[in-house]
Structures are given as structure tokens and as C-alpha cells.
């Protein structure tokens, strides 16, 4: 824990993004380590798999699906994209003719302008498609190659395609744990000092996990990254 040096706090304090850490579930740490030379640390807010969780997920997915389809249908009907034979299709027709759907159509009908409805529908589509439930952040350590961080954000804008960053080993000046003010508290977090870069790379930037996790990851990284598995190496000389 002595790896806190002189100048970094300033950098980090600017670096830390003050996005709201999703508090609904404390982040877990999962470790995949197929060989001693390779390890992947995953910190995620996804709770450990359980039956209830599965059920909840399934129901949520179905709900999304339904919403998606309904929005799609409404869009098509309002913009009258569906060709006639499709609407007359024996499977689809009863649904389109059903009173609740008609009510929906009327609800989203003329009083609000078509473009507004279209925009709303597109938004709904996007949300249904791209909504992320959990934040997942990974740290992949490859001995001899380097470190790769990846972040999958939660929420709509947290793009579900992980944003990755690979840092080759000889670029890594040091991996260390630092403290900084964040909001009303002082947090521990893991940083990678990159050779010849202004900003240090914060690992797990979104959900800054607690000190326990951070320390575990830090030891693991030290052990895995360098050839002579250096448990004691990082300590302040």
C-alpha cells in the first residue's frame, strides 16, 4: 500500500470522472486465470448468478422484446410502411385489429405530430436495444505483452461495446494504488503510469471498487505481469 508517490494526486484528482457510481449493487471481483502468465480481473455490478436473477433477466428481456415490437409496429402503422398483404396476414391481422392496439394507435395518433411520435418511437427502440443493466470493467494482464483495460458502461449511453485500451509492458512505468478526493470522500483506486503520457490510466474508472478489491487486483497484477512473479516488488524501496 505504500505505492503512493509525490505528484500523482493532482493528476488523478482531475482524472477521476465523477459519474455516479451505481450504488444498487456493490461491485464484485471475478478472476479468470487460465495460466499463471495470464489473468483477467473482472469487476462488475452484476450480482452472482442465482435463480431469481435469471428469472428477472428473462422477464426483463421479454419485456424489452415486447416493447420493441410494439414500438416497431406503431411506427410502421403510423408511417404506413407495412404493405397491405402483411397487414392482412392471418397472424398479424388480429393483433393489429385488437382494441388495445387500436387504442394505442389512437393514443399516439394525430394530436401529437408525426415527427414527435417517430422520434419517441426511435428513442424507445434504441433504449430497448441498447440499455445496459450492469457496468462491467475488465483488466487483462498478459505477461510479456502488457495490460488491457476494458469498460462496459451501464445505462443507455454506456456503449455496450467495451472501450478497450492496451498498454504494452515496456510502456508501463508502474502500477500502483492511489488515493484522491472524489465528491465528499477519499477513494482508493488503481492507476497505471504510462511512459511518456500526461494522464495516468485509471483502472476500473467507473465503479471504483473498495480497497479490498483494489488491493487484490494490484497484487495479482504485480504477480502476473512481471516475469519473476514479484509479490513484494511494488513496495516502496
Amino acid at each position, binding site marked *: 500500500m505504500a505505492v503512493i508517490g*509525490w505528484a500523482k494526486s493532482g493528476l488523478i484528482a482531475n482524472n477521476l470522472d465523477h459519474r455516479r457510481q451505481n450504488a444498487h449493487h456493490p461491485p464484485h471481483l471475478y478472476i479468470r486465470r487460465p495460466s499463471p502468465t495470464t489473468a483477467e480481473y473482472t469487476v462488475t455490478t452484476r450480482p452472482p448468478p442465482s435463480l431469481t436473477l435469471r428469472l428477472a433477466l428473462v422477464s426483463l428481456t421479454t419485456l424489452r422484446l415486447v416493447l420493441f415490437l410494439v414500438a416497431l409496429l406503431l411506427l410502421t402503422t403510423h408511417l404506413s410502411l407495412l404493405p397491405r398483404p402483411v397487414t392482412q396476414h392471418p397472424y398479424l391481422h388480429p393483433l393489429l385489429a385488437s382494441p388495445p392496439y387500436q387504442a394505442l394507435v389512437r393514443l399516439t395518433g394525430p394530436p401529437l405530430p408525426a415527427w414527435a411520435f417517430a422520434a419517441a418511437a426511435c428513442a424507445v427502440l434504441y433504449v430497448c436495444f441498447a440499455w445496459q443493466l450492469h457496468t462491467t470493467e475488465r483488466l487483462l494482464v498478459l505477461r510479456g505483452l502488457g495490460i488491457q483495460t476494458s469498460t462496459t458502461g451501464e445505462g443507455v449511453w454506456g456503449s455496450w461495446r467495451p472501450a478497450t485500451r492496451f498498454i504494452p509492458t515496456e510502456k508501463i512505468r508502474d502500477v500502483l494504488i492511489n488515493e484522491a*478526493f472524489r465528491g465528499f470522500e*477519499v477513494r482508493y483506486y488503481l492507476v497505471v503510469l504510462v511512459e511518456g503520457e500526461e494522464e495516468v490510466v485509471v483502472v476500473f474508472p467507473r465503479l471504483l471498487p473498495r480497497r479490498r478489491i483494489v488491493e487484490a487486483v494490484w497484487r495479482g497484477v504485480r504477480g502476473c505481469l512481471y516475469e519473476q512473479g514479484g509479490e513484494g516488488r511494488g513496495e516502496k524501496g
Partner: protein
Amino acid sequence: MAPTYNIAMVSDFFFPQPGGVESHIYQLSSKLMDRGHKVIIITHAYDGRTGVRYLTNGLKVYHVPFLVIYRSTTFPTVFSFFPMFRNIVLRERIDIVHGHASLSNLCHEAILHARTMGLRTVFTDHSLFGFADAASILTNKLLKFSLSDVDHVICVSHTCKENTVLRASLDPLMVSVIPNAVVAENFKPYRNPGEIPKETFGQDPCPARPLGPHDTITIVVISRLFYNKGTDLLTAAIPRILENHPNTRFIIAGSGPKAIDLEQMIEQNVLQDRVEMLGPIRHEEVRDVMVRGHIYLHPSLTEAFGTVIVEAASCGLYVVCTQVGGIPEVLPSHMTVFAKPEEDDLVVATGKAIAALRANKVRTELFHEQVKSMYSWTNVAIRTERVYNGISGAISEAEFYGYDASDPATWSATRGRSGVQSFALIDRLKRYYGCGIWAGKLFCMCVIVDYLIFLVLELWFPRDKIDICPDWPRKTVDERREPGVR
């Protein structure tokens, strides 16, 4: 073995900003750490110093991001510091909060919050305040507010103690007098000729001792050139001194708004060759400047302790100083010549000093050892430690206050009684209530609000959500260092 504490020094003034309070805090903390305590420092963020730093001796400094208004004192918001302060205190497991400098709002807020959180608090006062003008009246109210519920107060001189007792209407028994000190090693007189003097300061670096009748006597002045440092006196006195005593010269170091007056004086009666103005110098250069002189002139108008004259004496200079504030207590009479804060008297006193030096009546070469024996930071740390022991009940009140707490009932609610000074809200409110007719009620309201905030914080940021940070390896008192970290 003696108990060790986790101490948080809170003050607005700390490095990188230079100054007396800053070095006091630093020296005291490092000496306390040598005695096996854990010390952290909480101050506000300076330009380029944000976040958490470790100094090289393992002293941990929290530079809390705060709004700075005037001369690096933070904006007096009574409560806004509380969440951060609580977080720091909890994660560092602090049990004694030690605030410095009565002009620092951070310190006052910290003391208030610390009492709310049920910690022991100590306050060190470094400065004197009059009762005259409205500014100091406001300051005194603030001081009274934060000192109404402090466990112990430390003053740097007896005058300072009297002043604080009157300002905050404290019980004199809960005010200790622990002077500042100097690091005598950094202020050795210029003795060994082998030492290469810095050529950056003028022509003759080595003052010849013993003085012949016609040697040039150099008078050194090192102070910030503000009004209350007596720069006006200096400006008025220098030409007269110089005209009375032919071969003397001045070296003036320091900067400030009054520097222009000095320069004008120098230009008006042409003294460029006899008065040398060095401008601002760093604290580590002070010694190099001092050893070039024979007399240190200190024309201050108010001074709680006056560390600089001790430094000067330690450098083997004969000190001429005004008789104000705590200065008369600082140095024995054979090292100093006192003057009233008047131009004529200053001139006369300087004349006396010069005469004494010329007659070689003053054994300035002995000063260093004497000063070293008088003032040392270790001693300060030991005495401060006694205060900690006293307030945390490690030593009995009878020993600490010199009386036996006959019945705690009567004392539980009165001002600072260690051990039995209860944290109960009602008792604290009683203490605050007496601060004045209106102020008392206002203060009580503040305290209640503070307590409510505390409760809210307990709910919002529960304690188990706060990471406890590991300690720097403590030194045992017998100086045996543990190897490594954890």
C-alpha cells in the same frame, strides 16, 4: 509504555506556503511521529497541490479542495467541511484533532466537527489580537465559538496565553504555554572558515570576530515588510542609525507592501551603498543571510513569539528588538537589547547594541549552544504529548490540572475538564450558550445543525462503507524501525 495517538493537525497554513505556523506544524508533527504517534495533516488545496500527499518522512497531508479567499484562509462555511472531514477522520482512525492558527477557518470548523464526532480536540494559538477594532472583535467571537468546547489550548507564549484566555474567556488552567522552537542545527553561527559563503549576498560574507573599533558592523533585518512588522519604524530609524554610527551597514531581506517606502528612504538620503535590500528569500537562506551580520534588528509592533529572533540568536547575532507582545519572554537579557516601539528609542537601543559589540562585551559565540539548550522541538513534542495524555485521561486530572476533581457533577458542564468533559449534546450546548446574549443562541443553533448533519452523514455514508487506510509504520520510541511495509 506510553500511549500513542492518531493525531490530525488541521490548519489552513501548510507547505508549500512558507511561514512560521507552517514550519511549526511540520516540525511538531515529525517529532511526534518520532515519538511513535501517527500524525496526518489536513489543509486546503494549494495551487498544484491537490489530493493526498506523503511527505518524505511518511507524513501524510490531505490537501482538501477548498475555496481560498484571503491570504490562503478558506472561506468560512461552517458546515461544508464536515463530510470530507468525517471521511478522513474515520479512515485514518483519528482520536485527537489538533488545530492551529486562530485565523484559519478550517481549523475552527474541524474542532467543532471533531467535538460533534466525539473526539478530543486541542487548539494552538500562534497570534495575538487586540480588542480594539471590529475585525478582531469578529475574530474573537469566532474564536470563542470554537474554543467554547475545546479540550485544551496551547499558546506559544505567556502573553499569548493571557490574550487567548481573555479573548475566548477560557479557564487559564486549560491553557498551556508551549513555546515554539528552532532547529538549532540549521542556524549555526558562521564559525569555521572552511565554509564557503554564498556569494549571492553581497561583498563581505564573513563578519570578523572579535570586532575592532573600526570594523564595519552589519545589522540584519529579516521580516515581511508589513505595517505590523514595524517597517515604518525601520524606515524612520535607519537613516538616523546610519548617520550616528559611521561604519555600519544594513542588510534587509523580505518583501511586502512597505518595501517601496524603504526604497524611497534609501533613495531620498543616498544610502545605496550602506543598505542592501535582498528582497524575498527562502527560509533555508535565512541562516546564510544572518551569519553575515552582527546585530539582528527586529522592529515588530506585535509578535506572539518571534521565532526569528531565536534563530538570529542561534546564529550568534546580538538581538535588538521592540518590547512588544511575547518578545520579552523569549530571550534572556544578555542576548537582547529591548526598545520601546518608538523611533528614538529604537535608535538609542541600536546605538547601545553597537557600543556593546564594539566593546566586545557580548559573548555572541556562546549564543548558539545556549539557544540550543533552551529550545528544541523534541522538548516541544514531549510537552505537547503531555497535553494529549492529559486530555485523553492517560494521566489523572489531579496530575494534569493540579487539583482533584472533587465532584465531577459540578464540573461536567463547565469549561474544559479533561476526562469528564462530556460529549453529551446538552452539555456542549450549555458551554456554547454562554458565548453571549445573541451569539450564544446562534452558536447553539450551529451546534445543533452540525449534530443533525452528523446524523445524516452517519446514515448516508455509513462507516462500514469507508475504507480504513493502513498506517505508516510507527516508530517505536526507542527509534528501532520496523522493516518494510506490512
